């Protein structure tokens, strides 16, 4: 059982929960995730450990409420308990030891970029983050990332930072040279755009993939992704891979497997057939 210590809305549909998990707070490394099992009957959801406080014994989970399961999770309040959190899962990020890194985060992916930037900063790597959102209120983790290096904010409507996509800002920065590695996490189209940008430049680019998962320990194979024409399990072989070798079409396609179910669950929820809110 894991108590929710704090809750904070980061954007219109992204919520941060700080949850008691002393062991995980102590040993997690950049890039690792947990499987969250909210309660009996709930789905098992993979979530990146966005931050941790080993002294308080808490980890930060950043959740984009898109379906019933994530909505149920963000409906929880401080003082309530999450039944199970398993981890830390996945391979830690390959952090470079010196030089200059570009971290690109889009939407809720910015929360996944944060621990990577933290890890790099700790190594003494110079970090430049480019983060984006539809408009000002959709930009998350800006302050946290500013403590780790320079930050460029991009919004689609120009309401905050520069107007335009993160890829445009990334292109300018990369063209200027001096970037040793790129870490990109966000919606699949964004990651694909970033790797298409860096491939001709020959800049190594790591992306973090978020396929459908059940157990998170390699047992189910639901999270299989194609990288360099081979099948890998994101939970044990990833979740981070060489972006230049990832089959993004395949990933995006498989992410759509349960779209119809999500709509049904959401519908059932909205029409009062589900148990949410009754306990």
């Amino acid at each position, binding site marked *: 059982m894991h108590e929710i210590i704090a809750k904070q809305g980061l954007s219109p549909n992204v919520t941060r929960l700080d949850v008691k998990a002393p062991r995980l707070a102590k040993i997690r490394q950049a890039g690792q995730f947990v499987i969250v*099992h909210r309660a009996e*009957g709930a*789905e098992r959801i993979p979530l990146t450990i966005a931050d941790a406080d080993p002294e308080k014994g808490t980890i930060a989970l950043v959740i984009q409420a898109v379906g019933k399961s994530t909505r149920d999770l963000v409906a929880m309040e401080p003082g309530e308990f999450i039944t199970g959190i398993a*981890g830390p899962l996945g391979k830690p990020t390959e952090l470079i030891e010196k030089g200059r890194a570009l971290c690109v985060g889009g939407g809720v992916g910015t929360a996944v970029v944060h621990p990577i930037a933290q890890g790099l900063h700790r190594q003494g790597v110079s970090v430049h983050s480019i983060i984006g959102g539809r408009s000002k209120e959709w930009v998350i983790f800006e302050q946290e990332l500013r403590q780790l290096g320079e930050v460029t904010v991009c919004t689609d409507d120009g309401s905050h930072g520069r107007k335009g996509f993160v890829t445009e800002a990334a292109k300018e920065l990369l063209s200027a040279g001096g970037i040793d590695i790129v870490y990109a996490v966000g919606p699949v189209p964004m990651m694909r755009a970033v790797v298409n940008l860096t491939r001709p430049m020959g800049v190594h680019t790591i992306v973090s993939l978020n396929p459908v998962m*059940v157990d998170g320990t390699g047992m189910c*194979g639901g999270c299989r992704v194609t990288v360099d024409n081979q*099948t890998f399990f994101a939970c*044990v072989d990833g979740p981070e891979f060489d972006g230049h070798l990832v089959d993004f079409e395949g990933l995006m396609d498989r992410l759509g497997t349960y779209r119809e179910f999500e709509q049904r*669950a959401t519908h059932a929820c909205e029409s009062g057939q*589900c148990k949410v809110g009754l306990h």
Partner: protein
Amino acid sequence: MKIDRQKMSEQDPLQRSTNFGEVNLGLQEKVALLEAERCLQCRDPKCVSGCPVMVNIPQFLELLSEGNLAAAAQSLLNDNALPSVTGRVCPQETQCEIECIRGNKGLPVAVGYLERFVGDWARGNREQVPMQVAAPTGRKVAVAGAGPGGLTAAGELARRGHDVTIFEALHKPGGVLVYGIPEFRLPKAIVEDEVARLQQAGVKIVCNTVIGRTYTIQELREQFDAVFIANGAGLPVFMNVPGENFKGVYSANEYLTRVNLMSAYQFPQADTPVLVGRRVATVGGGNVAMDAARTAKRIGAEASIIVYRRTRKEMPARAEEIHHAEQEGIDFEFLVAPVEVIGDEKRWVTGLKCVRMQLGAPDASGRARPEIIPGSEFVIPCDVVVVSIGTRANPLLTATCPEMKLNKWGNIVVDENGMTNLPGVFAGGDIVRGAATVILAMGDGKRAAAAMDEYLKTAPPLGSQTV
């Protein structure tokens, strides 16, 4: 008077293929007593040596035939910690029952049915068969994995007075007994009962804890006097054919986990979905393939088809599972091997392209090697494909314990006592054997527990071990 082998009553095939209620309904007491009487009480009982956990079968059957159920249960439980489980899922026809002398002229004693009967009686009458726990030894033992191997070892160790903690990666204990084997073959309440019995005997179970990730083996060695690794097989093997990542292709592990552990058949009451499929093709011929194909029918598939590259005779599944599957209207495509998953423009599965096979000379396993018949390609129309062709070793635990000796497939190497190359660290079940059975894992757990008990008598005190 000659007594014929008693029959197990079953739920009607048509009815049961639409529900998750248990298929086999158990024996009435008087029927069980009658069947137990059929045991010839051989002086040199071959059935016992056919059993991976060496249950003293004649003894519990004799006590049963006398109507002394408590004594029969005590005798059985002394040898087998999970009789209600093994009575349901063991391949008795290739273990105890194949050795039964009665089988030479007629049918063997129905050992499996009787084991189930006595096991179930014991579950309903716990107070009459309390677990005898020895005085505390002061030794602490960690078990990685709460599947059949880990649960058995934990029970044996607790009985000997050791302080046992099981670490389970999933949110519920039971391993394959809860995520893999479906409710209609092994009700989850039975597993819950067995787990509760262990907990009453002092075994602690910590879920959501992945050994190799949450704690490494080295960390466990620092905190426990001995460790038993029974974390199971893990990674499902895929066919490596085009189209395998189309939407609608599952590993049997994923398909069964969604339905069993996550109750996806109750969606949207349960949150986890599963693609039901109108026509489901399951590739493979083992128990897991039968479970998947029969599950597909139960959750609403109009047609559920087993695709197997050899013939019925070579199928590794238990005879009863194949028989039950046939009764339930599962279709079998024998001597057929998939070569490609076909999908529509949106990459949803629409069919499984296969070739026909013929059997050639025996291969290394002794089974006839299937060979492709040229020009025999055809398509099985389907919208879900379940791949059930085995698993390979899960690297999660071993990857963070590089000093542990593995074989070329990544399975842990153990000596005749079940000990790895690390002193005090034992292993058993699928992580050692590759994909095997519940009872073999239990046998490993039982043997390792005995060896661990011996080891603990002379082991150095905690904290003094070196690699």
